[in-house]
């Protein structure tokens, strides 16, 4: 800490320099293990490489699973209407079923799948981050 000595000799004409306070920068001791894993990621060691591969695989599996849901849920409709024409003639509240399914119901369905994806993909990333920062777990 620097210490300001009062300057008594120069009289009262010159205002004393303002008192300053010096604070040491806060030292954060990095978690050495987390640091090591981050370095492994950056330097593409085999451990880091395996971690990234795991994340990519998890995200791709999630995306493929949800596309399968859409492929069956929506992609199956033309085929279903083709093999079971009576389905197309069914009416709900005076409207034929294909009009309701395609014109109305498909949009909330797509949004629901998208919402699920955003949640699950963020969870995958959180798991990855936890793994990198606390490798002992």
């Amino acid at each position: 800490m620097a210490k300001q000595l009062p300057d008594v000799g120069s009289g009262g004409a010159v205002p004393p320099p303002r008192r300053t306070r010096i604070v040491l920068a806060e030292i954060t001791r990095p978690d050495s293990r987390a640091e090591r894993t981050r370095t492994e990621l950056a330097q593409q060691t085999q451990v880091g490489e395996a971690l990234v591969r795991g994340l990519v695989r998890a995200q791709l599996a999630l995306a493929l699973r949800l596309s399968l849901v859409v492929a069956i849920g929506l992609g199956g409709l033309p085929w279903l209407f083709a093999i079971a024409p009576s389905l197309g003639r069914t009416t709900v509240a005076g409207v034929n079923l294909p009009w309701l399914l395609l014109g109305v119901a498909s949009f909330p369905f797509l949004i629901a799948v998208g919402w699920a994806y955003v949640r699950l993909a963020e969870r995958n990333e959180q798991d990855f981050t936890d793994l990198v920062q606390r490798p002992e777990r």
Partner: protein
Amino acid sequence: MGNDYVVPAIVAVTLVTVGIGFYGLRLARTTSDFLVASRAISPTWNAAAIGGEYLSAASFLGIAGLVLKYGVDVLWYPVGFAAGYLALLLFVAAPLRRSGAFTLPDFCELRLGSRRLRILATAFVIFIGWLYLVPQLQGAGLTLATVAGSPYPVGALLVAAVVTANVALGGMRAITFVQAFQYWLKLTALAVPAIFLALQWQADARPAVTPPDGPTFRTATTVVVEHRATLTLPDGDIREVRPGDELTFAAGDPVPEVSGVANDASDWLLPSAAGDDDRGLFATYSLILATFLGTMGLPHVLVRFYTNPDGAAARRTTLVVLALVGAFYLLPTLYGVLGRIYTPQLLISGQTDAVVVLLPGAALGDGLAGRLLAALVAAGAFAAFLSTSSGLLTSVAGVISTDVLGRGSVRGFRLATVIAGGVPAVLALNVSGLDVSQVVGLAFAVAASSFCPLLVLGIWWRGLTDLGAAAGVLVGGGAAIGAVLVTVLGAPLSGWPATLIAQPAAWTVPLAFIVMVAVSVATRRRAPADVAATMLRLHTPEALRL
């Protein structure tokens, strides 16, 4: 048409667009402001802007026209246009943002490090962009001709000029505000009249959409034919009509059957069944594939992702876009269905794309409400042309300025904008007979067979090589472009060849994937050495970066 509110409404939309553009110009101070809006745009604004940019003439006018003409089978267009954002969300959004690529050619160079692939991607961006711009200008010409009686070129040139000037002067930041405003305008312009139309339908004692004796004219109608067609009159006579022919019908007359249109109640109301028409089923699946996978390859969609601060924000933005776009697509179907009751003459004149603009006047009459709502719809249609063309023009001009002119300066971008806007304007003046949605569908097919495999394999598969990517894009995208050229320029086909060419995605998309994977495996040694670093960057959260 004696509606004196339409022209002021269109002028107002245009002035507001230009006005916000100039407001944005004052805010844009640096090159980064100008080109990528300094990445300071919130996800909600960004999502509304993406939605505003995406909902084009095909969405605003085309879908309703197709529903009027063909019925339930074409509902796959709105479903596919919305589902395209889900595919984008699942496979592309976050990694693409993390890659830091601003355009598709940037992505090619980042991932595969090949200059030649970059040039190929640039050529495809320009082709898709122009293919998509032409129907926007065409829709503008058609709308202005329908509602204000101006000659076709006036509307097309007006939109081309306004958009070129606005993009050249305001850049991306202005565009974001303009686009977000235009999303809400488009939604309002379809939603408010839809409420009045539904009430009118109730007040008219709910006329049946598919009456048992076939559709009839509700009022005395004179039809001026715009496209050649063969009519089957109720007494069984067959009559050929040519453009310019005038037909007069009294109120209550049955609507004659028109060639090439779903006339039968069951054709229109029910999906195509197995057995009687396998080609219908093939075309449906092809359309699904093109729209689901094509969205991610459209150049103007991709540019927007760079304005998100990070990968997680890109994902959330995409989800909001999906919701906004899905809400919008509930409406055009309603217009197509009510058009079957109130504007059957469009089936004969061939101008089905005009149904959205004409329906309020036809259903609500010439009273004040009818005229105001017709003006609102026309304003919304103009918002659609202006916003989609702005987005396309920004991205096409972006690649032209960096990859063709080789200058990254604001002045280079302005020059590129003029080039990028001029070419489609000239093309639009020479093709007025094409269906708006058909051309847009082809643009999706080209994008789905070129950039979709490139993005998906580039993001998720380490084995992709530059030669593999180039071969896949050339073979798949080339086949789709060939189909476009045959459709636009070639002789009419029939049977299976016609279906394969009109809806090419079901064979061109798998072809592109197969060629890309096969050639990459064969040239395995050319895989970039830094692929592990690229994967790390694309897929790990930004917070972990060192």
